């Protein structure tokens, strides 16, 4: 009996074996072209940003850009130090994360430990609404509702300030964190939680003593993802945080983020070749790079989580 022949006859047709390109059906070619769009997009982004960025750096030295404390692209004497924009962005990132992470974790714990099944069915999707609201709307709410309220308690709050914008970005991110935490919590095998309760622990002891430890990597990933989102947030901060590059320790002041500068500069329709046009790409470069690093970090942490949970 020739086993080899039988094996060959029983193999599925070549097209079904998913061979990489041996089989040039029209469909596979068309689909591969489609798939290359994603590659094109990344390459285009990388090329465009890096080429313009290097042009920019030739005009404005790297030292001035990366370490300068003054960002004044429009009026003389011009200066292109990124630090004020970076500081503004960091305010948004810090405020939104300080708000969203603790509250999000608490909500995740509530959904897991105290929320009844029926209530959870409508509560969790309802909170998702916060994430679905477009960012322009949040910017509007920040300027017209949050800031006036803040002014009543803290009169020195400026009309455009980092705090309202940061808070509102925090609202946006909140459901992402709570969902991530809750989804991670229910992935913990039931018997681990039961083991903790069987020792006579209260829910808070189980949560802080055992569960948080089990989902640690996922929480880190959630934090990093929220940092990344806040870093790249555009419309809400453009409307609410101001257009005033400001290296300050006071979140009640007006600031400008990297993203809102990009919007401002491109609305002015600076022609190609001008320094302002290049500065858009320089800012984009910083933005792209930082979010890239943060996202990659988050992915690694999520992978670590998968390994951790499977051991339990």
């Amino acid at each position, binding site marked *: 009996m020739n086993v080899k022949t039988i094996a060959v006859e029983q193999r*599925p047709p070549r*097209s*079904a074996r998913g*061979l*990489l390109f041996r089989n040039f*059906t029209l*469909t*596979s070619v068309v*689909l*591969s072209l*489609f*798939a290359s*769009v*994603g*590659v094109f997009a990344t390459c*285009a*982004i990388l090329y*465009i*940003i890096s080429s*313009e960025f290097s042009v920019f750096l030739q005009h404005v030295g790297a030292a001035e850009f990366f370490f300068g404390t003054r960002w004044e692209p429009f009026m003389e004497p011009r200066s292109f130090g990124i630090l004020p924009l970076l500081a503004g962005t960091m305010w948004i990132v810090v405020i939104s994360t300080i708000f969203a992470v603790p*509250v999000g974790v*608490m*909500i995740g*714990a*509530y*959904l897991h430990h*105290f*929320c009844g099944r029926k209530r959870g069915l409508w509560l969790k999707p309802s*909170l998702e609404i916060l994430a679905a*609201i*477009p*960012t*322009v*709307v949040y*910017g*509007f*709410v920040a300027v*017209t509702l949050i800031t006036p309220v803040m002014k009543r308690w803290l009169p020195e709050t400026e009309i455009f300030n980092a705090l309202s914008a940061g808070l509102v970005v925090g*609202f946006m991110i*909140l*459901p992402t964190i709570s969902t991530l935490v809750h989804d991670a919590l229910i992935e913990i095998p039931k018997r681990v939680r039961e083991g903790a309760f069987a020792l006579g622990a*209260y*829910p*808070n002891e189980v949560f802080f003593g055992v569960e948080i430890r089990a989902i640690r990597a996922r929480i880190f990933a959630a934090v990093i993802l929220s940092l*990344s989102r806040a870093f*790249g947030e*555009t*419309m809400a901060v453009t*409307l609410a945080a101001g257009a005033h590059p400001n290296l300050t320790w006071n979140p009640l002041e007006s600031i400008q983020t990297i993203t809102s500068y990009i*919007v401002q500069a*491109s609305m002015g329709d600076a022609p190609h070749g001008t320094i302002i046009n290049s500065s*858009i790409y320089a800012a*984009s470069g910083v*933005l*792209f790079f930082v*979010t*890239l690093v943060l*996202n*990659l970090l988050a*992915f690694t942490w999520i992978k670590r989580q998968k390994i951790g949970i499977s051991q339990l």
Partner: protein
Amino acid sequence: MISLRHRRAQLFRFLTWSAAIFGLLLIIAIFGYLIQQGIPHLDRAFFENYASRVPHKAGIKAALAGTLYIMGLTMLLAVPIGVGTAIFFEEYLRPSKLKNLLELNIANLAGVPSIIFGVLGLSFFVRFLGWERSLVSGSMTLAILLLPVIVIATRSALTEVPRTIKESAYALGATKEQMIWSHLIPNALPGICSGIIMALGRAIGESAPLIMVGALSFVAYTPESVWDSFTVLPVQIFNWASRPQPEFQAVAASAILVLLALVIAFTAITTLIRQKFAKKKANY
């Protein structure tokens, strides 16, 4: 006698409950405020007028038309490319370093801030290709932005199709292409649709990339061809909200209500499809 331990447990319970309530109150407060601000101006004229320097004459006709056109064009581009890419990954690519790289690429693009796509659109479509500030530039830019979302949603829909369905097609002698069209796609359709509608819901609210690609804010006509300039609802809102006069803020609020209605509609449809799909899966 209530111990410290018990008190701490009670505090935890209270804090977590308050956090959840706070989230709910937030939603209620935001919507309540927006409805209160926006309802007065929501009349027929609002939908039939174009933007205007005079607040009470301002309307969203151009913005609404622009939104609809952009959505349509973008979906026309993004859906085939997105679904096609997902099918290519799932069915045609063998597990390899290349595949990992491509998947990482898509996952990365999903996390890139939307304004970067605006920069891409500005440089490539508007300037390099010379398409200027037109519907095509805008929809192409948005299509690239939505691509990762659709790819990821489609892939998860594809992987949820039970293997037995694919194998039964092959067992009858079908080619891969036949299997995809007659078995894979129809069975993954609910998941794919919900992903598309979810992408739509997100796209409707996108303003940053469109601003960069030139969704002008003072457009007093509805677009006639794909090369016309345009504006969309969120950009119009941005423009009105940036003006200092409170009357314009009120108009912005009304436009926001329309935008929210659209977003909520799409989100609701997505959830409904997901629920129905989950029920159907239980039959396997």
